[in-house]
């Protein structure tokens, strides 16, 4: 009997939760704010679904109800991707070590 592909996706999902668990515990507490902003940015990879949704119209009519929701989702996710990564970059650039020389 063949295994349902859903089981494979479920396996990836469960294993990723464990990976996430161990990786996040090793994040230093002083970087918890950048952690939140970068998780925000990467969860916006939902844009891949939004792009498929946006392109669901046909060549005659690019816009139908379904694709309009897709386009709106693209814009929202794009705000998050650019905003999230850039603000994380901006924050991380501020973390500096003590200057050794006086």
């Amino acid at each position: 009997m063949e295994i349902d592909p859903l089981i494979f996706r479920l396996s990836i999902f469960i294993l990723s939760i464990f990976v996430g668990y161990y990786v996040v515990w090793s994040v230093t507490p002083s970087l918890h704010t950048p952690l939140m902003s970068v998780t925000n940015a990467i969860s916006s990879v939902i844009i891949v679904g939004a792009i498929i949704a946006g392109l669901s119209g046909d060549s005659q009519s690019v816009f139908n109800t379904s694709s309009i929701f897709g386009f709106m989702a693209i814009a929202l996710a794009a705000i998050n991707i650019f905003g999230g990564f850039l603000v994380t970059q901006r924050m991380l650039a501020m973390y500096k070590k003590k200057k050794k020389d006086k």
Partner: protein
Amino acid sequence: MISANLSAIFYLVSGVLFILALRGLSSPETSRQGNLFGILGMIIAITVTFLSIGTFSIGFVFVILFIVVGGSIGAFIAYKIPMTAMPELVAGFHSLVGLAAVFVAISAFLNPIAFNLGSPGNIKLGSLIEMSIGAAVGAITFSGSVIAFLKLQGIMSGSPITFKGQHPLNAIILISIIVLIYLLCSTQSSNLFWILLFVSFLIGFLLIIPIGGADMPVVISMLNSYSGWAAAGIGFTLENTALIITGALVGSSGAILSYIMCKGMNRSFFNVILGGFGASDDTSSKSSKEQKPVKSGNADDAAFLMKNASSVIIVPGYGMAVAQAQHALREMVDTLKKNDIKVSYAIHPVAGRMPGHMNVLLAEANVPYDEVFELEEINNDFANADVAFVIGANDVTNPVAKTDPQSPIYGMPVLDVEKCKSVLFVKRSLSPGYAGIDNDLFYKENTLMLFADAKKMTEDITKNL
């Protein structure tokens, strides 16, 4: 057009890059590289999506257009936002992820053919379950984050909003969501889908309004977690590995942060979620304590104490963020260092309005991160320090948490500030902190209260040093 197998492999690569992005955050040195991995992962995921659709249509132009429009807005916000507003920004971003998940779910529900999920009214059962869970969690994330944003921004009062029958009502709504998902899957009715979305928006709103301002670190982390689970739900629907991996990462990340924040307050997760902390405070005990003598001083006294100290520990809190005092504080510390005084910073896990809030503000003010310590690292040093400078923190320094089992904050880990030879406490008045309880530290022999705005007081001290 690339094959489905090849694109699946690329999605896996991008998922791995996201793991590396989080891994980089284990130290500030590797964090910047980590962020670049994250960006690379995102570029791969988006490019592969375009390639897998293959045939060019006019729709592509609009996709690019919307990415550019959204991206410019995002970039603009990212450069303009002041660091003190980071909690609001993160809450706002969470709401967008939630809403995007809802929109993708709606789109997939209306046009399942485009997603290869069956036809309208006859969507594959598994996909429909995943889709409705993704949509419901996304909707909760959206409305919850909007409330959190409004509370943090001060548009909505930060105090808990409670009413009679709140908990039973929430319980009924949560049960009805499960029932609705069940009915939706058995009937495929689009009306039920809209009702499900509406009810989910409603519960997100109701869940967050009873939670007070200082519990926001837990709320933001929790919503962070939800946004991940919503993404994972959609990932299952779209059979997309990158989305499933990311959703799981973000979901567990938010859950861990919520746990750390709850532990920092010695409260259970449910206690925070049920809300209304400190509302049942005993007023009689408070009024009796107000009779106690308090020593208050001015900037001159504070400067004198610090000048004669050999080590100073600074305890920042939310008040520092409100007063935007971090730059003034660093200038004061620079002057202290010139006088060969050892200065370090002590950060309580729940100081501020989100995890790591204080660290970012200090980093913004050019405070080197190796002078900033977590509670466990520095708590033993208070006994050997000459001066503790408490700026904008309150409940996290209250010795009552260690001495009085009756106190609502009993058992909460606190900074042992009172063990210092002298304590300088910058605060506008003697009013209690968020927990609604009096801080015994105000009345200690070795405490000098500095009644003033945090920024102004810090500047005045610097002048007097």
